[in-house]
């Protein structure tokens, strides 16, 4: 395995964020009896307050604690990201698998469906769906799943088509294995690798799009620990104070930095995974 410095950086970043997400309740203890994902407020003034010992990253507009926000934001990002990808992948496996394995008219129909969804830029379709469902994170989750599953369906279908014609599948069918058995025991394990690569490369995009929707005001409500939401709160403060243009730097820099590093870490890792797994796939 060729370890490039970049993949190690990616791995380090991902490990860092994973630890932060898992340790959130310890790093930033939630208030008892309240939704831990709602950031505690320390007042109602719209003017942000700079970092201090009690609030290491300062308070953003509305006096929400930024440190708490970004820590639980990490957890929220994982929570929603993994959920979206897992469900999309599952739907994709089922639909793509059926299309790839049985072919014919089923394949045609399903592929047309994915074509249609692909005709829309992801963010725009998600926007339309969220507006239809009503704003909120649940709508965002549902909308994202509906937008994302075709990617996995296409991938799995491609893999099924490729593997279907390989010898060991013919052999399994020849000795009388049922279709389901062939799919689950023989084809699926081989098709999994590209899926894993795609999933790891996808987390970044999914979290980015969710953050974008929150930024636009369609996802997480104000006060929720969501990086996109926090960045949207920072918009009014980019000009700073007269005489001190960067007075409120912490408000826009910190949440964005967390989001950026999270996405970059996963992209680096996904890239490295692809480099490693590629020859393996080809040799198969």
């Amino acid at each position, binding site marked *: 395995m060729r370890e490039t410095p*970049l993949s190690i950086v990616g791995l380090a970043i991902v490990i860092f964020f994973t630890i932060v997400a898992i340790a959130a309740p310890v790093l930033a203890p939630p208030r008892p009896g309240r939704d831990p994902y709602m950031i505690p407020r320390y007042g109602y003034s719209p003017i942000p307050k700079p970092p201090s010992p009690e609030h290491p990253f300062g308070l953003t507009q509305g006096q929400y604690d930024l440190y708490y926000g970004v820590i639980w934001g990490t957890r929220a990002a994982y929570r929603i990201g993994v959920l979206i990808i897992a469900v999309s992948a599952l739907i994709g496996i089922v639909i793509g698998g059926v299309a790839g394995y049985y072919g014919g008219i089923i394949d045609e129909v399903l592929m*047309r*469906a994915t*074509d*249609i*969804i692909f*005709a*829309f*830029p992801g*963010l*725009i*379709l998600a*926007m*339309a*769906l*969220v*507006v*239809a*469902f*009503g*704003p909120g994170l649940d709508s965002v989750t549902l909308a994202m799943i509906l937008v994302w599953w075709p990617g996995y369906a296409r991938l799995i279908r491609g893999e099924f088509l490729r593997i279907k014609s390989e010898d060991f599948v013919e052999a399994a069918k020849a000795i009388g294995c049922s279709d389901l058995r062939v799919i689950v025991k023989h084809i699926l394990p081989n098709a999994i690798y590209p899926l894993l690569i795609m999933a790891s490369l996808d987390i*970044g995009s999914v979290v*980015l799009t969710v*953050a*974008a929707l929150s*930024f*636009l*005001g*369609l996802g997480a409500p104000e006060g929720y620990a969501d990086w*996109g939401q926090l*960045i*949207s709160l*920072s*918009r009014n403060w*980019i*000009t*700073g104070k007269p005489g001190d*243009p*960067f007075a409120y*730097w912490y408000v*826009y*820099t910190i949440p*964005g930095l967390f*989001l*950026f590093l999270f*996405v*970059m870490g996963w*992209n*680096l890792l996904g*890239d490295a995974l692809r480099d490693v797994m590629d020859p393996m796939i080809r040799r198969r």
Partner: protein
Amino acid sequence: MIPVLIGVTLLIFAITQLFDPYMRASLYIRDPRQAKNIEGIIRKYGLDQPMYIQYFRWLDQVLHGNLGWSQSIHMPVLDALLTHFPATAELALYAAPLTIFIGTVLGKLAAVKKDTAVDHVTRIMAIVGWSLPSFWLGIMLLAVFYGGLGIFSPGRLSTWAENLVLSGKFKVYTGLYTIDAILNLNGAVLLDALSHLVLPVTTLVIINMALLMRIMRSSMLEQLNKTYVIAARARGLKWKTVIDKHATRNALISVVTISGLLTAGMLSGMVITETVFEFKGIGYWAAHAATQLDIPAVLGFALFAGVVFVIANLIVDILYAYIDPRIRLG
């Protein structure tokens, strides 16, 4: 292409079905006064009829230009689209060619100088660009240049320029202020419009060139491994000639698709960038409409985006046939 277009309309229509008939009625009115007669509208467009009848009635309306009323900005959806499109087009006009150019040049460089410092640096640039949240990059750029240095403010024009444009003294030909400024021989407005384009275009280029760069790089690497490259060198051609004349041209073919999709993506509205920079294009309008739950606007916007994409795909296919003799001559 036609089936996909139909599919696009079907999908949008399917989304409309998520709403009750009263809300759907707003898709058919062109004038807020019509809102008073909701029952009449429901009957007129058959909103209580079975779905397939509704679909054709709706499609009929769409093809006649009636996309409903955008209540968030008080004008018919179609008009809103047309009014806001020039801003989006202007952004795309500068962002798309720059992105494509920089992306292909860097990608080619990275491939030719594979595994050297140049390759690694461009790779990092690509990963950073790909990972950057566009809204965060935009905000940071604004904070530094607008907040910190006081130049490059958001919006399309400074107040004075906007007043000039809206007055009768400035003739608006296209709606793209830079072009109109040239046509009006007005250097001041041209400069002002350009300075407002700098930051949004920079944001778009940084984020989008990443993908293009990587595709160009891998396409180039693929070509450099091909036999015809060795054969060309074996003929005694200089390495530079072989790269520029042969490998690059073949590599660009793969890049055409992604460039086309990129341009289409830009033309269908850059929701985030326009919002951050308050650049009043269709993306800005749609984002604003979404928060106001202005359904006809958002759906009209989505329909537009879908159609643009399908057409872009068609254009890309035609381009392919033009560039590649294997496709052209069959």
